[in-house]
């Protein structure tokens, strides 16, 4: 665009056309926002003429439909809210607008971000999220459209959200790079609340470098979100990033792959770890303390989420939700006792303490993004072998509870692709660091991506 090869308006038109044409193949799109995109692109073209150099200027993106945006309904992926209009921009979207970005679409999501525990990928107003690498497999959730829209090349980046795994899973399954920020780094004003104490909004993109650009735009203070930390994000400069990669101490537990990876994913994950160690060589062994991370995180988000949606659950439109298991889960969660919620909140202190112990001797924890590749679109998500965070007792747990544990402690994580399983579907790794360690996480993932080309692979259409 700076070289006048294409204008922002032309790019916005092409992107909207592609979202409308290809999006339905993946059930990735909630609504194409052509009118808004063209208006924002016109402003971007005018700024480009003034030699404005903002990195996101004129770049189109998609936003998970849990974020409010002017000019379109905000459905939260759920039939009872199909006509909901929230006439404001979520802070993350307002910040991207100020950065000159072009909102091209609201992208699909699992209904209510899956807080009731859904059984099938079909638990969405837009239907099951289909994986761009094989549409008979799932895109992952709950940021299903963010994963498939970026993985399928419909948009260069998208905003997703994570309560526990909702950026990580679709990033791993769709072969994209996703950044779950530290709790409070990115304002959640204008985002559907599933869990006040767990929800985070973050970028999903084609590379760690792209995630860094987006994160810089959306992070920072917001008077409208009292949980916003006020901290900003700035990438490490090139020299500091290179030094960090050489010096970083990486905690890793080999059983994450040896005991838990599926046959299809195993070899590619092992190769990914080998590649990573060539770039960041200082490996040490460390594992999370033995705590019931799965029950803890699900008790917290189920208790908070069922309270948030109590009027829906007890009202006349509840039955419109798609997934029967999710409905049962939400109803049952209304009866979680205060004692158990508070005990879970109390134990989150122990989870944080466990991480602090690890981070005395390590700068980051490396593990798999998911132990498996994307599952068939019709497969129940609670079928055996689906939940790596609840390993069978005969297996060493390693750090397979890292997604739940990291979310309980409010820690940042980056998920990035490291190859393909024997079934042709992407697999990826994750790095978790202390609070506000995003500069280091992004620098390490970027170093890996400069030395490999997994993140550049695109599915055939």
């Amino acid at each position, binding site marked *: 665009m700076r070289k006048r090869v294409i204008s922002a308006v032309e790019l916005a038109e092409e992107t909207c056309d592609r979202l409308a044409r290809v999006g339905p193949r993946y059930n990735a799109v909630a609504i194409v926002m052509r009118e808004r995109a063209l208006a924002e692109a016109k402003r971007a073209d005018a700024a480009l003429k003034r030699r404005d150099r903002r990195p996101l200027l004129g770049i189109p993106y998609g936003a998970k439909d849990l974020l409010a945006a002017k000019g379109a309904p905000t459905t939260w992926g759920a039939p009872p809210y199909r006509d909901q209009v929230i006439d404001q921009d979520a802070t993350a979207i307002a910040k991207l607008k100020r950065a000159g970005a072009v909102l091209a679409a609201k992208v699909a999501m699992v209904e209510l971000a899956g807080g009731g525990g859904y059984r099938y990928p079909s638990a969405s107003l837009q239907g099951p999220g289909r994986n761009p690498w094989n549409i008979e497999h799932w895109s992952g959730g709950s940021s299903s459209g963010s994963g498939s829209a970026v993985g399928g090349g419909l948009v260069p980046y998208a905003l997703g959200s994570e309560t526990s795994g909702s950026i990580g899973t679709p990033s791993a399954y769709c072969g994209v790079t996703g950044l779950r920020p530290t709790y409070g780094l990115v304002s959640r004003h204008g985002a559907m609340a599933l869990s006040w104490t767990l929800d985070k909004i973050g970028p999903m993109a084609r590379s760690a470098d792209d995630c860094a650009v987006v994160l810089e735009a959306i992070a920072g203070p917001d008077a409208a979100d009292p949980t916003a930390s006020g901290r900003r994000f700035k990438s490490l400069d090139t020299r500091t990033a290179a030094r960090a990669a050489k010096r970083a101490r990486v905690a890793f537990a080999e059983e994450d792959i040896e005991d838990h990876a599926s046959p299809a994913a195993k070899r590619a994950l092992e190769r990914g770890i080998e590649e990573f160690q060539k770039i960041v060589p200082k490996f040490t062994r460390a594992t999370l303390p033995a*705590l019931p991370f799965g*029950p803890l995180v699900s008790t917290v988000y189920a208790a908070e989420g069922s309270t948030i949606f109590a009027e829906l659950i007890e009202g006349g439109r509840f039955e419109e939700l798609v997934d029967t298991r999710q409905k*049962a*889960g939400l109803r*049952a969660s209304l009866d979680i006792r205060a004692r*158990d919620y508070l*005990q*879970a909140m109390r134990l*989150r*202190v122990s989870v944080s303490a466990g991480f602090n112990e690890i981070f005395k001797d390590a700068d980051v924890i490396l593990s798999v993004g998911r132990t498996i590749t994307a599952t068939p679109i019709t497969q129940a998500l609670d079928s055996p072998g689906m939940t790596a965070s609840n390993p069978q007792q005969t297996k060493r747990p390693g750090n397979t509870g890292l997604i739940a544990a990291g979310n309980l402690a409010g820690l940042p994580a980056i998920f990035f692709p490291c190859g393909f399983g024997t079934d042709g579907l992407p697999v990826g790794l994750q790095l978790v660091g202390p609070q506000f360690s995003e500069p280091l996480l992004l620098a390490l993932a970027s170093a890996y991506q400069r030395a490999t080309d997994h993140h550049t692979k695109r599915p055939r259409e």
Partner: protein
Amino acid sequence: MKEKARKTVTAPTAQPEDTRPIDDPARLADEARATVEKNAIEIRKQHVPIATEPPTVYRP
């Protein structure tokens, strides 16, 4: 972390296999309630020594 079951926690007993279809709403409702209880049991097993406990629960 020392694991110790409290007196108030009821250990799950073996149930006969549920023959209802897996997506039967009544079965799902029973399973969802059982999951809430199972999670509660796991959480209550975790002992927190109150003499040295921080003066607040987790604050994000």
